[in-house]
């Protein structure tokens, strides 16, 4: 027997989803508008504003920086996070439980505080180059995602398979790469992609670590918005939404989007 849902709740749900998706539709509409100002519904349709993105070197440059930073930061975080997640899942008795909390500290400490503290000690304290400071900052804030998503995959992995390989004479390293890794592939891909989008969209860390010459796309967008108000920003936003769609497709194919409700 299915319980009936009160009609008022249905109406409320419809309104909620209109509220969630409406603003995004507004952005897409105003990106297509054939006017020099932002308006919705669009008046005339044009792709001019998309072409215009590539005329503004600040956008193309920061787009490249953001993309490379997200790939490099996530890769670094994976290389560090996967062994940690493996150790936490495999050696549950040997490691103290609080270690799990240590790895989520980067989301527990307010990001803006972390950004400020990193800027204070890295960029100005040690004179670390901006790009390197950004890389470390991004690897750090995505670490909780890599450790936890890969960890979720490892928790459902039966380590006795690995033990069987080792007891039959397979070296431990080889056993990890040929037995464990293929089994947690979905978790690694999903963790990578979630970390990637987090890094790509980051504001609070980057705002402190970007400087003259080096900036990321979200920071450039923020700066642009305060001076200009033309549909170019809307078209960049639409491109970023395209990245979101791609990310969702990958997560759906690996872990399934319902993973995010757990």
């Amino acid at each position, binding site marked *: *027997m*299915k*319980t009936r*849902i009160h009609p008022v709740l249905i109406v*409320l*749900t419809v309104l*909620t*989803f209109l*509220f*969630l*998706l409406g*603003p*995004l539709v*507004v952005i897409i509409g*105003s990106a297509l508008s054939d006017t020099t*100002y932002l308006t919705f519904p669009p008046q005339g349709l044009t792709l001019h504003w998309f072409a215009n993105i590539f005329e503004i070197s600040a956008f193309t440059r920061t787009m490249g920086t953001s993309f490379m930073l997200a790939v490099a930061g996530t890769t670094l975080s994976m290389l560090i996070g996967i*062994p*940690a997640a493996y*150790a936490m899942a*495999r*050696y549950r008795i*040997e*490691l103290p439980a609080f*270690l799990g909390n*240590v*790895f989520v*500290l980067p989301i*527990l*400490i*307010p990001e*803006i*505080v*972390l950004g*400020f*503290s990193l800027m*204070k000690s*890295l960029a100005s304290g040690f004179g670390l180059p901006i790009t390197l400071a950004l890389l*470390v*900052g991004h690897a750090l804030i995505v*670490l909780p995602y890599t450790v936890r998503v890969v960890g979720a995959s490892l928790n459902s992995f039966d380590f006795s398979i690995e033990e069987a390989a080792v007891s039959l004479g397979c070296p431990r390293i080889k056993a990890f790469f040929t037995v464990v890794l293929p089994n947690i592939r979905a978790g690694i891909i999903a963790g990578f992609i979630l970390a990637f*989008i987090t890094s790509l*969209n980051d*504001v*609070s860390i980057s705002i*402190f670590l970007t400087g003259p010459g080096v900036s990321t796309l*979200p920071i450039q*967008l*923020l700066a642009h918005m305060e001076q200009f108000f033309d549909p170019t*920003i*809307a078209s960049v*936003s639409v491109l*970023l939404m395209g990245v*979101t769609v791609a*990310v*969702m497709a990958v997560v759906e194919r690996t872990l399934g*989007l*319902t993973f*995010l*409700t*757990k």
Partner: protein
Amino acid sequence: MSNRLRAWLLATPAILLVFIFLGLPVLATFATTFGDPKGPFSTYAAFFNSRFRMTVLWRTMEVALVTTIISVAIGFCTAWVVARMPGRIKSLLIIAAVFPLLTGVVVRSFAWLVILGKNGILNNFLMKIGAIAEPLSMLYTQGSVIVAMVYLFVPLMILTLVGVLEGIPQDMTDAAASLGATPAATFRQVVLPMAVPGLIVGAVLVFTGSFTSYATPQLLGGERQMMMGTFLYQRAMVTFDWVGASTIAAVMVVVTLTTVLIMSKVARKLNPMAG
């Protein structure tokens, strides 16, 4: 090699990353606040005695609290319906909630800039239907910040609660109903107690997230609606008052960690499964 040694070796790079690039810098920020020659707590005294700084702190608390209450209410009702939808519709609705969640905060705040601006969509619409004669100034108000924040956090609340509400077996509510409980009583005595831990987790995420946000108050609140995040940035990068900025940072950490600790204690106490 013993298992213990191997486990620690594998975890070491991650521990070092967190310790060197989070632990030490954040501790250094705290240390800065106690280094004042006028006494170790003088920076805090200055903070809590300053009318302006306290206004910012209370405003941030208020915005975060109102955002949390609205997001919990909307999120709970929506998640309740989503969790009870048949498979296909449910997946579609979950996709519709994940999409804004994975879209960047700058893009999502920008949307509200377009909607609420002086020549924005809402003003144009209201003028067209003749509801107002002059465009209203809706931007740079507490209201505009709260609307954009609720927009930011409702998807998170829905996704957190759908999982929790799905976990409540249909048999439970059916049993309550068959024993004569009214729908309202079933909700209050069966559903709500089981959903409370999830509600608290979601509420803590929303509260700490909005309390420490930067991009949204920067774009929709501006100088007029300064919040802790924008205040910290302004002190650090515009006036270069690093001690002042560190004090703001310390207050932010204390508020968020206290909230997390207290609420997770409360959640554990209220959890019917643990009792």
